[in-house]
């Protein structure tokens, strides 16, 4: 069957279940029910600290077919996921569903575990590196389920994603399971992606390399959610934890795009006191933040909040008084961690508070402007950030679909071509975020506005900015690069792209 975006999706997918087709960004809003959580009450005599991962697996009765979860706050420096999965494999356990909020190049050991049948299903929001390439080649027998950050929290809280055991890498934990991410040699800042797991999983284990005296302070994840605590030598490599952070682009083309984007934001009238703003961690996105900073300072504008994964650049803007508060779901660098430690105006938001559409209002609902990227954009403004134009998975929504749905103004900033590949195509290889959420595309050679946004078109007409139809922009690119040959895909579904509301917006088919 076709969903409303014209994507061909089966009615039932083996390893996923019955498909609810995507019908619109807020079509499934309404009454929601949260899952019941079953737990083992803890009495005064019970001790939570265990001797090692082996004992943990015994106590939680880890068995074939269970679902385990991990957060990705330690990013490419994380040790915990690989450690736990290796221990599980050692016990001869099989058919585990891995619900990791993101997977990185350092998770390459998973490939062996998949081949050996230890891990047979993956649920995640983002994947990159060898594991993503192998999954795209179809090493899993069932498709990967890809959520948005908000959608994963939704799935966990509603019970759609049931977690048997949540392993929470804890930079600091006391002996009763009070966790924070602020202190310890593997400090990573806000633990936004671990909260729903802690609250809803059957069993929760704190894995720490920094066991402190009771009670730890502050408490990000409370003892009332944690069953066991285990100490290991190291939960992660600090260098890898702050890896993947980018600097502002030095490329003149990127800087031009940033300047044009700033002009667009100002022209819409949204850059004013009490404004809220979020930008990605990519080079051009950060350059946009720098331009905005310049403008806000020049005009004495104070915003209400900046949100997202927080980088040092946003912290600078906050410190200079340009935003009253920060909403932080994950810290990307040391500066962000230090800021989070030092002031309560730099606040943590859980993944659910960030972008779950099925609660009483996520932060994305209050967002004025969000700056995002894209690997492909089609004539209907649908955006792909899940697969590259070779058809292989190289990312995932993360907060893309969530912020785009909530923000008053969603701007995609991108070069028109990346190494001869036009970003604007007739039809995206996969849809991650639907066109109705995307308002403006800014490239160095032209700006396209979603025809739905006649208000923005009017405002931009009054400027000197190069506004053109998206079809024209595509032609400009193709004139330079030539028309790319379409990637041939097989029928085999290797990933299901689930929209934040639980419906299926697209599926990833294995490239030929």
């Amino acid at each position: 069957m076709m969903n409303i975006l014209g994507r061909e999706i089966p009615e039932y997918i083996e390893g996923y279940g019955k498909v609810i087709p995507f019908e619109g960004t807020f079509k499934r809003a309404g009454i929601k029910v949260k899952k019941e959580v079953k737990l083992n009450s803890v009495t005064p005599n019970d001790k939570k600290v265990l001797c090692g991962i082996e004992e943990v697996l015994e106590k939680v009765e880890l068995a074939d077919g269970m679902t385990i979860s991990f957060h990705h706050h330690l990013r490419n420096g994380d040790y915990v996921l690989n450690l736990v999965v290796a221990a599980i494999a050692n016990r001869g356990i099989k058919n585990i569903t891995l619900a990791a909020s993101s997977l990185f190049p350092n998770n390459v050991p998973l490939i062996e575990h998949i081949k050996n049948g230890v891990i047979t299903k993956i649920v995640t929001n983002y994947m990159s590196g060898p594991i993503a390439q192998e999954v795209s080649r179809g090493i899993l027998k069932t498709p990967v389920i890809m959520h948005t950050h908000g959608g994963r929290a939704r799935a966990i809280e509603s019970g759609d994603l049931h977690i048997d055991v949540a392993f929470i890498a804890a930079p600091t934990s006391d002996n009763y399971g009070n966790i924070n991410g602020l202190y310890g040699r593997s400090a990573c800042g806000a633990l936004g992606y671990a909260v729903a797991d802690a609250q809803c999983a059957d069993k929760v284990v704190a894995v720490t390399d920094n066991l402190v005296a009771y009670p730890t302070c502050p408490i990000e994840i409370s003892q009332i959610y944690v069953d066991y605590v285990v100490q290991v030598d190291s939960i992660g490599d600090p260098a890898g934890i702050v890896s993947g952070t980018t600097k502002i682009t030095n490329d003149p083309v990127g800087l031009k795009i940033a300047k044009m984007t700033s002009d667009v934001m100002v022209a819409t009238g949204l850059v004013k006191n009490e404004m809220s703003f979020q930008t990605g961690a990519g080079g051009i996105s950060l350059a946009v933040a720098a331009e905005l900073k310049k403008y806000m300072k020049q005009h004495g504008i104070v915003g209400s909040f900046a949100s997202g994964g927080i980088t040092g650049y946003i912290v600078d803007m906050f410190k200079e008084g340009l935003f009253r508060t920060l909403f932080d779901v994950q810290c990307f660098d040391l500066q962000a961690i230090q800021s989070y430690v030092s002031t309560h105006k730099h606040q943590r938001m859980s993944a659910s508070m960030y972008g779950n559409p099925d609660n009483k209002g996520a932060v994305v609902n209050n967002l004025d402007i969000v700056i995002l990227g894209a690997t492909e954009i089609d004539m209907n403004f649908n955006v792909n950030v899940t697969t590259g134009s070779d058809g292989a998975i190289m990312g995932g929504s993360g907060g893309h679909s969530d912020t785009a749905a909530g923000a008053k103004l969603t701007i995609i900033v991108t070069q028109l071509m990346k190494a001869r590949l036009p970003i604007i195509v007739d039809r995206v290889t996969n849809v991650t975020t639907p066109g109705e959420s995307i308002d403006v595309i800014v490239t160095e050679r032209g700006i396209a506005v979603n025809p739905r946004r006649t208000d923005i078109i009017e405002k931009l007409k009054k400027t000197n900015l190069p506004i053109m139809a998206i079809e024209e922009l595509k032609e400009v690119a193709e004139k330079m690069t030539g028309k790319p040959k379409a990637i041939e895909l097989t029928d085999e579904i290797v990933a299901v792209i689930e929209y934040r509301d639980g419906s299926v917006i697209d599926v990833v088919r294995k490239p030929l």
Partner: protein
Amino acid sequence: MQINKPAKAGTMESNDIYIMIMPSPKGGIEINLQSIVMKQFGEEMEKVILDTLKELSVESIIVNAQDKGALNYTIKARIETAVKRAQ
């Protein structure tokens, strides 16, 4: 034109193509192309190389090329440069 000796042109930078050519002992045109956009543009790039060689009247050559997303005009220019250097 005859290819009298090996020659190279271009760089491995983004948007460029690194061309290495040498005489072909058995005659005919042999093209070994590697590209970061092989699936999408491989066919078109090979055609540009062949057309350029034809324009230069090269009938016997081995071309090894490593492409980093060069546009057609760059491919043409680098092939021509290498061929002229091989005189």
